[in-house]
């Protein structure tokens, strides 16, 4: 058989490449114990010799998540501006490098790699969806770099390379359930978008309900971005539950609440507790559709603290009076200040020193004082149940008496023992 020139040319090429590959390959993992010791693979290239230090912001500036993540980007920018105006971090001005995650996990992983390896940033701030965080986590661990993640999430995670400044489940979901139980809610219906956060949250809710004599009458998921809720709303209505626990994401909320209302369900007849609707989403959902409904967060724009008044005023001054502030924005704003405090406590920008100094660092945040838990890299937060008022803002109707310690694995809750196994 005659082999074509092409094929003949490729054989030596392939062979050569194989040889390169085999001789050039590095460490092989034969012993798990030694494998873990190679963890500090990435040597930091952060340059702190000049008068400035680089930090990275990574948010979806395009794609479906841009709606939410642009707001986080804005409040991060505000914090950076404030810090620079006040003299920077350890006397060094922050030089922000911003990357677009484009609402794709893969893009987040790639861009995070760029911020760490190419741009040599001292710390990275951002991410929103669980999938974007999960995608970035290995990148930060492999390069031993720092990510500050500002959004409430499903817990069950504690990487030493990530600081979680949003609420974990025991700072948002469990307090919301406690509130419902306190109000005499005997049965609930779970509605969520079909992805990690709602599914994990609902697992926790199921366990909580089982332990507290609450009945879960249904658990329904809509594909992300779905706008067709006739069936789900019919099921909800038919269940005659006392309340609905809503973990829907983004535009699905609009469709859900419109269709919820159109079959005659109201905040009075069957309240909905939402964990993903913040101030900036209310106008899009339509105030007339959600007025009077409940939300569970740790921060609302209406909070009456000096730090918050300053934050809201500064934000409106920079971005316009019509803009609102929300929980993730506050958590992002806080995250940059927390990093500043950690660096100053450590007296160094180096990752291991910052990590070592992190425990106990606290900041007077708009939501109240927050303190970093050195064990799990989460922060203390004050859960609050809010009600959407006639202006589209959210008013606190219930608040935890004290800040709640983060417990991402729910280790301190007996009923949660079987979760995450």
């Amino acid at each position, binding site marked *: 058989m005659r082999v074509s020139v092409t094929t003949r040319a490729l054989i030596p090429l392939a062979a050569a490449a194989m040889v390169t590959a085999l001789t050039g390959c590095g460490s092989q993992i034969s012993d798990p114990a030694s494998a873990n010791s190679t963890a500090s693979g990435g040597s930091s290239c952060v340059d702190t010799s000049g008068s400035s230090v680089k930090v990275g912001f990574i948010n979806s500036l395009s794609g479906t998540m841009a*709606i939410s993540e642009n707001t986080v980007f804005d409040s991060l920018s505000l914090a950076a501006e404030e810090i620079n105006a006040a003299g920077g971090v350890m006397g060094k001005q922050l030089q922000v490098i911003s990357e677009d995650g484009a609402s794709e996990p893969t893009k987040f992983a790639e861009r995070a790699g760029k911020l760490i390896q190419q741009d040599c940033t001292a710390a990275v701030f951002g991410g929103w969806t669980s999938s974007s965080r999960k995608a970035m986590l290995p990148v930060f661990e492999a390069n031993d770099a720092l990510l500050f993640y500002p959004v409430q999430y499903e817990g069950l995670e504690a990487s030493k390379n990530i600081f979680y400044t949003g609420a974990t489940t025991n700072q948002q979901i469990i307090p919301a359930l406690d509130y419902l139980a306190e109000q005499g809610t005997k049965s609930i219906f779970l509605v969520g978008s*079909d992805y990690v956060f709602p599914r994990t949250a609902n697992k926790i809710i199921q366990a909580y309900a089982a332990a507290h004599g609450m009945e879960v009458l249904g658990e329904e998921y809509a594909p992300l*971005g779905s*706008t067709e809720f*006739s069936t789900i709303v019919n099921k909800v209505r038919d269940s005659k539950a006392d309340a609905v626990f809503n973990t829907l994401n983004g*535009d699905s909320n609009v*469709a859900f609440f419109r269709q919820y209302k*159109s079959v005659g369900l109201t905040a009075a007849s069957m309240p909905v507790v939402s964990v993903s609707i913040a101030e*900036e989403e209310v106008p899009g959902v339509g105030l007339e559709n959600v007025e009077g409904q409940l939300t569970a967060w740790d921060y609302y724009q209406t909070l009456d603290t000096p730090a918050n008044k300053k934050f809201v005023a500064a934000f409106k001054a920079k971005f316009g009076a019509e803009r609102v502030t929300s929980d993730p924005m506050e958590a992002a704003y806080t995250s940059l200040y927390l990093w500043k405090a950690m660096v100053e406590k450590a007296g160094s920008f180096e990752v291991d020193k910052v990590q070592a100094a992190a425990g106990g660092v606290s900041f007077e945040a708009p939501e109240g004082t927050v303190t970093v838990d050195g064990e799990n890299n989460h922060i203390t937060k004050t859960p609050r149940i809010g009600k959407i008022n006639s202006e589209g803002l959210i008013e606190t109707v219930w608040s935890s008496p004290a800040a709640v310690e983060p417990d991402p694995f729910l280790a301190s809750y007996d009923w949660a023992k079987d979760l995450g196994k």
Partner: protein
Amino acid sequence: MELLIGQMFAGLSLGSVLLLAALGLSLTFGQMGVINMAHGEFMMAGAYTAFVVQRSISDAGVSLLVSIPLGFLVGGLLGLVLEAVLLRRMYHRPLDTLLVTFGVAIILQQAARDIFGAPSVDVRAPAWLQGNIELLGAPIPLTRLFILLLSLLCLAGLVLVLKATPLGRRIRAAVLNRDLAETSGISTRRTDQLTFFIGSGLAGVAGVAVTLIGSTGPYLGTNYIVDAFLVVVAGGVGQIKGAVIAAFALGVLQSVFEFSTTASIGKVLILVLIVGFLQLRPQGIFSLKTRSLT
């Protein structure tokens, strides 16, 4: 019982939304062979039309009634421009129209973002469409009923135009045999423009309608486009009646699947079912019989 009626109506209602979205496509894709991926964005333009109109006419009822013809006009004009600038030269390359209009679609999405902002905007439903009527205990949302009626109205209008006007005769002639129509002195140029205008206009109307049930944002169209194409394909290209049957069948089936499984599985089942159905009947429910092979 109550739930059953509610679910049946949910199916019909979903079907009517699909029909509204697909009706225009059955003209532009079915009759002209253009695979217009920007059809969803024409819906989005219609939805934003409703938003803009509501800003100047504060009465939600009046603004809705004004938005419907205006949405038709906006969608139709966008379609006309697209036809004149791009598609005109591509009728003999239907597959390429898919990619070109996809490009147009992402441009329009970004344009909407830059003009109206990324967050979705609120289009209020008029007071007389809020609430529901009871049918044997099941609540029938008025907005849904309105969309059902609107879709039937559009259908009737379209059938009327196709069957009873000179334009309709020209369209049908061009579908059956383009070359013959041309040689018989029918100006296919004008016919193409008008067909595309009407088809895209219907997308605009659909866009106005869906503001009543969903969110109005730059990516509104992407929720409907794949489903709408499946309706046209399953119904049989060039067949309005096929599209009607397919839309309602899909609506009811999806509601049934969604009810008995989950929304995600229901969606997958529907998609797989259509692919399977087209194995059995590659020409869709109804097929156009001509002597030429296509």
